[in-house]
């Protein structure tokens, strides 16, 4: 890449494609054939619990780890066997990996120095990048003299200083405190928009992924179990595992049964806006927001009432299931009360009891 392109956003480049990526660590298979398509300019999140293979996938994209099988394509070029430095990608590590013996300016300028960019041009690019993340007053400090948030920005500036075709971010916000995390999340999104660079973002925080990403892939046990926009994944989780992972609090999951064309939980019929499909045992999923306290329905007992100010979360137990319901108004119930819960018929998700897949 020539350094002249550092001035303007790159558009139309940064398509990433993974084809059947397999990664093994000894006898353990970390990735079982990952297929993934990231579009140019997209903010794409790899979401999953720890150990699900999302970071390994990112590292394979970066070229830091070889894949045992499959291909990595960037802008339709096979880069599977290319060195990290030959892929035109920049990465922000979870630990930031700032060079402790260099100043902030030297850190940010390092990628340019390595390709022999002239001194004045580097200095200008460093100032620009630092200004974009608001650390241009800290250029002479060393990483050890920066706060966590400033270090994170420095790492970000080092990534954006040369305009790569792809940003790889590995849990970049996880070392920040809660408030800063929310602020930085918004800024990161704006920054990515203004730069227009394709971004692949690894996180285990579903809320983070939901708010920041254009699209996301949900990883479970070394497989992608669902890909889509945050809204799609939220509205139609592909499996019990995804349903139980996305949303805060996540979806309530209950054992149910379809018999004679009707759905029942603990023997109590549950209304649906559609036919329930094949007879047999199912897993019923309902988001906390779609559960109501009602005069009739599944009998339950109130376990806990948590007020969050603008909303209330009520934990009830019904037929051996712990169910959370979320409501904007504080219901007139107390712990220990016997109540009934009902579900909005159009918000009931059904999953196959044996495969866990959506039906």
């Amino acid at each position, binding site marked *: 890449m020539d350094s002249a392109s550092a001035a303007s956003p790159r558009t139309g480049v940064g398509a990433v494609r993974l084809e059947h990526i397999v990664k093994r660590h000894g006898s353990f298979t970390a990735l079982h054939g990952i297929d993934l398509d990231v579009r140019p300019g997209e903010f794409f999140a790899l979401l999953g619990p720890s150990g699900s293979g999302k970071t390994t996938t990112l590292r394979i994209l970066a070229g830091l780890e070889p894949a045992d099988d499959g291909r990595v394509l960037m802008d339709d070029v096979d880069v599977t066997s290319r060195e990290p*430095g030959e892929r035109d990608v920049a990465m922000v590590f979870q630990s930031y990996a700032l060079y402790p013996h260099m100043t902030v300016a030297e850190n940010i300028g390092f990628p340019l120095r390595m390709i022999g960019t002239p001194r004045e041009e580097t200095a200008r690019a460093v100032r620009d990048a630092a200004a974009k993340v608001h650390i241009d007053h800290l250029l002479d400090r060393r990483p050890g003299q920066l706060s966590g948030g400033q270090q994170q920005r420095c790492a970000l500036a080092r990534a954006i200083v040369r305009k790569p075709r792809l940003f790889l971010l590995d849990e970049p916000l996880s070392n920040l405190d809660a408030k800063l995390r929310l602020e930085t999340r918004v800024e990161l999104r704006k920054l990515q928009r203004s730069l227009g660079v394709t971004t692949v973002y690894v996180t285990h925080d579903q809320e983070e992924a939901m708010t920041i990403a254009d699209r996301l892939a949900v990883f479970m046990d070394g497989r992608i179990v669902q890909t889509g926009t945050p809204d799609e994944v939220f509205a139609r989780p592909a499996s019990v595992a995804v349903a139980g992972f996305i949303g805060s609090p996540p979806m309530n999951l209950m054992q149910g049964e379809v018999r004679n064309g009707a759905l029942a939980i603990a023997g109590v019929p549950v209304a649906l806006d559609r036919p329930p499909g094949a007879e047999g045992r199912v897993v019923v999923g309902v988001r906390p927001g779609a559960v109501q306290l009602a005069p009739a329905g599944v009998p339950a007992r109130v376990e806990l009432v948590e007020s969050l100010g603008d909303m209330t979360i009520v934990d009830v137990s019904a037929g051996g299931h712990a169910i959370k319901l979320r409501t904007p108004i504080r219901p007139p119930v107390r712990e220990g009360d016997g109540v009934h819960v009902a579900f909005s018929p159009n918000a009931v998700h059904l999953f196959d009891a044996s495969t866990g897949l959506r039906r």
Partner: protein
Amino acid sequence: MKLRTVALTGAASLVLAVWVVPVAWALLTSFKTERDVLAYPPVVVFAPTLANYREVLFGSASILPNLASSLVVSGAATILTMLFAIPAAYALARLALPMKRAGGFYVLATQMLPPVGLIIPYYLILQKLGGLDSYAGLTTIYLTFSLPFAIWLMVSYFEDVPLEMEEAALLDRAGRLRALWYVILPQVRGGIAVTTVFVFLNAWNEFLFAVVLGGNRVRPVTVAMFNFISVEQTLWAKLAAGAMLAMAPVIVIGLLAQRHIVKGLTVGAVKGARR
């Protein structure tokens, strides 16, 4: 608590005394005349003289050539050791080599072997190669123990540098060599300094190999000191002056590198125990 402090201070003083008294004694002796040295009871108050130092430096039995000899052997051994040890230690710290554990044990084992057991094979080998009483010969022999030691010490330092550092550098298009040069080496500067000092001092203080494998041409100062001990007499004051001169660089380097050395020792200890 107080008693403990007193006891610890006492114990520390005792240990210190064991090390300091002989050096202090030698220091005093080096300023005495040979007569005062042998006076009994020992004289505490005496007229200090620099005659011994003059004699040792510029007299007929000057140790200047021997100091030069020590410097050449120690310097060469140190430079060569570090030249090989740094990349070797980096590789050992970073690569998953199949023989890593066995190799580590071998390195430790070389530190445990009594050097005297190797004297004869080394002598015979050097004799065959014509390396006796040569700088190349003695330096090579020094490498056999300093190189494993230096690698072993340096590995701990390299392992302390997070792997992400060079991954970041690789993504920043530095390549392996420049990642090592610009990113990794500056972070192990302390370790390099400590190891260099240790290697140099070990070589500088070495006596056994020097006396057996050296000769008239290559005679380090540790060996030359024996010129002052002969069948007829022992020139204690001159011996002490020579010893002081031989010790001077050791003490100066030790003071300069004190902070790093203490840290280096603990790093090596902890990491060595874990491996």
